């Protein structure tokens, strides 16, 4: 039953992902690949779409994956699943447990989680990088180095750092996506 699978998977993602959109990616990546809903490449493509369209990344991903697996009803159910835990948890906190975050035990638990989230995001990025630039996916894969990918990465890093040094703020992610798309056309056509 695809609808139930979608609902439960996104319920789990909504209930257990901390640290916003990027904190969710490691979990979404595992779930999506274990069900065979999207390939790694399709997932990364879609993260780019989520980043360049308005709205929360998590909702965008749920809608897209839901739609690709079960049409508009699938999209609706997956979105409902990812939003529901937030809605309930926040409602309970706002209405009843106003001081929840001030309890030392809760704070200690959340403080314990935060380095793991940082680790998960960095780990996901490194694994994706190994997979797409260096061609290492598992031990069985052959080593396929993509120097063009490395050049693109270098250009993006340079732009980002120079802009940050000059303006003290982050370069627009959408512009970075457009620049890398143009380089993609130039390099891979």
């Amino acid at each position: 039953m695809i609808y139930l699978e979608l609902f439960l998977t996104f319920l789990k993602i909504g209930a257990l992902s901390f640290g916003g959109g990027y904190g969710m990616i490691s979990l979404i990546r595992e779930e999506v690949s274990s069900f065979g809903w999207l390939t790694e490449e399709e997932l990364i493509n879609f993260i780019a779409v989520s980043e360049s369209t308005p709205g929360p990344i998590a909702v965008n991903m749920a809608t897209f994956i839901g739609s690709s697996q079960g049409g508009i009803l699938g999209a609706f159910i997956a979105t409902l699943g990812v939003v529901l835990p937030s809605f309930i948890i926040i409602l309970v906190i706002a209405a009843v447990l106003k001081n929840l975050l001030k309890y030392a035990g809760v704070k200690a638990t959340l403080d314990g989680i935060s380095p793991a989230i940082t680790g998960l995001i960095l780990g996901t990025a490194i694994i994706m990088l190994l997979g797409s630039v260096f061609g290492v996916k598992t031990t069985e894969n052959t080593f396929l180095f993509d120097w063009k990918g490395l050049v693109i990465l270098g250009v993006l890093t340079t732009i980002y750092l120079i802009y940050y040094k000059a303006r003290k703020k982050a370069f627009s992610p959408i512009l970075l996506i457009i620049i890398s798309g143009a380089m993609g056309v130039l390099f891979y056509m």
Partner: protein
Amino acid sequence: MKKYLKLFLIMLKIGLFTFGGGYAMIALLEYEFVTKRKWINNDEFTDMVAIAESTPGPIAINSATYIGYKMGGVLGSLLCTIAVCIPSFIIIYLISLFFNAFIHIQWVTAAFRGIQICVIFLILSAGIKMLIKIKKTVFNIIVMVATIVCMILMSVFAVDFSSIFYILISGVLGLSIYLIKLLISKKKKGNGNDIS
């Protein structure tokens, strides 16, 4: 009734105009609710952000639900949450209908090979930003390094190990260390009392 409609429309607008996820939305929410309309004061807003960041789920949804409740109870929170999702839902649903055909156009495929690198760069830079911000305690460094190393090893050897476990284990670790410290400090106090 008018208030609910207004709340709904503001959230719809915010959902439509925030690019780049939760943190971008927080800036817009602050402008609409604190600066422009003064419906929520600064302290309350700061509390809201702390709660939205540390509870699970999308930060945007967490903030919308919280503000909705503050402004109009359960109905308010329901309206705000739905409103903030509607634009995303419609836009992404429409994209999903055409995306597969679109991505197979030759130059689009090429462009997306470049864009994939950019996505990885964006994830990496989000991680590095968190790395810079986090307190460099022994606990944090150990958990972070252990998570990264484990993840890479699991991935290279194709072992299934869900991210959920990293989150649960580190949460339990954080709590246990706190409880042990509490126990030790109580014991010390207890001993002190015995002697006196």
